[in-house]
C-alpha cells in the first residue's frame, strides 16, 4: 500500500481517538486514549521516514502518561462532572469550527502537494551535510551544528519549564510540611 493510504488510516484513527478521549467521562480512560493517539503520531512519523522523531515521540508519550497518571489518577481520582454546559453552546462551537475548516480548504490548495516539498534551504543541508559537519544523521547535523543556537534556546526553555515545575511543587510541599497558610 502507498504511504498515503496508511496515513489516511492513522490520521482517521487519531481523530477518532481524540474525540473519544475528550468525550469519555472516566479520566483514566481519557488519559489512556490520549496515549494511543500519541503512539499513532509515532507510527505516522515512522511512515514519514523520520525514525528519530518516532523514538522521541514514543518517549514523550510514555513520560506524559506517567506524569498525568501519577499526578491525577492516584489521589484525586474522579469522574468528570456531568457538564452543565448548554447544548446550544456546544452546537455553536462545532458549527463554528466546521465553518473554519471549510473556509480553510483553499489555503491547503495553495500549499505544495504532499510528497513534493520545496526544499530550498534543505537542499544545501542534504548535499553538504556530511562534508560540512561529519554527522551521518542529517537531522542531528541540523540540530547540533547548523542550528545549534536554536537548540541552546530549546534547552533554555526546557530548563525554565523544569524550574517552574519544581518551584510550584515545592511551594506546596513547604506549605504542607510547615502547616503555614501561604
Amino acid at each position, binding site marked *: 500500500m502507498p504511504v498515503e493510504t496508511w496515513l489516511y488510516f492513522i490520521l482517521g484513527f487519531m481523530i477518532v481517538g481524540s*474525540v473519544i478521549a475528550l468525550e469519555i467521562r472516566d479520566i483514566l480512560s481519557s488519559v489512556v486514549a490520549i496515549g494511543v493517539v500519541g503512539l499513532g503520531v509515532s507510527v*505516522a512519523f515512522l511512515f514519514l521516514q*523520520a525514525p528519530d522523531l518516532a523514538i522521541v515521540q514514543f518517549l514523550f508519550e510514555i513520560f506524559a502518561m506517567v506524569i498525568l497518571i501519577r*499526578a491525577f489518577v492516584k489521589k484525586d481520582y474522579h469522574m468528570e462532572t456531568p457538564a452543565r454546559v448548554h447544548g446550544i453552546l456546544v452546537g455553536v*462551537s462545532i458549527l463554528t469550527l466546521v465553518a473554519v475548516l471549510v473556509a*480553510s480548504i483553499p489555503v491547503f490548495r495553495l500549499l505544495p502537494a*504532499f510528497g513534493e516539498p520545496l526544499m530550498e534551504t534543505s537542499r544545501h543541508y542534504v548535499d553538504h551535510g556530511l562534508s560540512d559537519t561529519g554527522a551521518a544523521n542529517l537531522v542531528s547535523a541540523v*540540530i547540533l551544528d547548523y542550528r545549534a543556537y536554536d537548540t541552546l534556546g530549546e534547552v533554555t526553555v526546557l530548563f525554565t519549564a523544569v524550574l517552574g515545575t519544581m518551584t510550584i511543587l515545592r511551594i506546596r510541599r513547604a506549605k504542607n510540611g510547615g502547616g503555614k497558610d501561604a
Partner: protein
Amino acid sequence: MILYILCFTLFLVGVYGLLTKRDLIKLILSLAIMGYAVNLFLVLFGYRSGAAYPIVTEGAAPGPMVDPLPQALVLTSIVIELGTTALLVALAIRLVEKYKTFDIHKIRRLFG
C-alpha cells in the same frame, strides 16, 4: 491535500476540547492534541515521495532524502511540549489543592 485537511481536523478537535470542556485535565489533553496535530503537519510538509530517511549510509548510493529541516525543528518542539505539559500539570495540581475541584467554572477567584 486531504492529508493536510485531516491534520487540521485533528487540530480543530483540540480547539473544540479547549472551548467546551470544563475539566482541568481535559484542557491539558486538548492542548496535547493540538501539539500532535501541529508536529505531524510540519513533518507531513517535509515528506518527499519515494525518498529515504535522512541518514547517510556508508557504501550506499545517495538517493533522494526527505527534508531534514522540519524533522529537526519538530524534534525541538516535542521536547519543549513535554516541559510545558509538566508545568501545566504542576499548576493544575496547585489549583486543585487550593479550590478542591477540577471544574474551571467553579474556580472564580483567581486573585489569591
